[in-house]
């Protein structure tokens, strides 16, 4: 599951949303995708609130 050049393991799907947001904090800058959009992209759960803006700061 890739966002840009960052590959995330399938195990991210097993995280609760709060665990996901906590674990994802350090990657927002590298992916350019905020945690809400990343949660949707990586887990397929929840409603996408924002179009992912890959590569953007």
């Amino acid at each position, binding site marked *: 599951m*890739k966002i*840009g*050049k*960052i*590959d*995330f*393991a399938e*195990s*991210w799907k*097993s*995280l609760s949303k709060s*665990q996901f947001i906590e*674990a994802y904090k*350090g*990657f927002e800058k*590298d992916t350019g995708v905020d945690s809400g959009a990343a949660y949707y992209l990586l887990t397929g759960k929840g409603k996408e609130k924002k179009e992912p803006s890959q590569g953007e700061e």
Partner: protein
Amino acid sequence: MACSLFYFSGQGDCKAFRERAIGVILTKKNTVALTPAEAAALSTWAPIFADSAGQDGIYVSFARGYQNNTTEPEMTTSNLGLTEKTFDSPPLIKGFGEMSYADYKTFFSADGGAYDVWLVLNDGTIEAYTRADGKIQGRRAKVFMNFNAPSADNPQEALPIDISFTDVNQWKENSVSVRPIFTIPELMDLVPIGVEISVITAYTAGTVTLKAVKRNSTTPETGFDTIANWPILASLGDPAVTVTVVNAASAAFGIYTLTIKSNVTDNLTAPVIIRGEAEGLVAGQLGYVSQPLQINP
């Protein structure tokens, strides 16, 4: 000892020499047993050397030198002058690896281990022995590496590998020579290209940064950019250790930042052993593989 029945079996017109050994195929002990036809086919050896699910063997070239150091058979003379052979020693060979010292170091952990050794001769013949079930297998041997300072005079003989066969009976009537339909360079090309990985930023708060280069060079390895490229070989303490993120933003330089966790979210408390690997031209077969590397938390 027991005596065998001997049958006079004629002689062929071809009196060609038995060729010198130019290398060996090392396979895991009692893992690779083939029919002679299978051993003669290149497609058989490809998954043995490079299966992405696990490698079972490797070809080692002794093009830099080969010695037969087998102890002469024990001959005993009675007090009445009768001399007889009283013991056959199993063969002991020494090959000088055609490889870099960086490659040689990857064999250090094989030191003293038992493997099945398929002898490869200069004309491409592969020597093995026939098992009781009719399949052929490499002869059992212990492999010894040399932990020594660099050679002062002969660099070709700087990287010796001693192979001590354990059972002379695998060299007797059940010895078998297979003439493959491939050449040895084709066999060598099946061995994945070696990659060297090293830690450039130690494991901190769940992440470690590694650099991967083609072995014994500064050429970056640029193809280790997914989770699948970084299998965890062993965990020395923590349960359920996985690579959860691979940041390949600097892959062009061979630099990868890996997040390694226990139970998905916990930072490591004990070392893990990891390696990098990637498929080559053939799907399902490794084209690139690194040495194992211990990551300390």
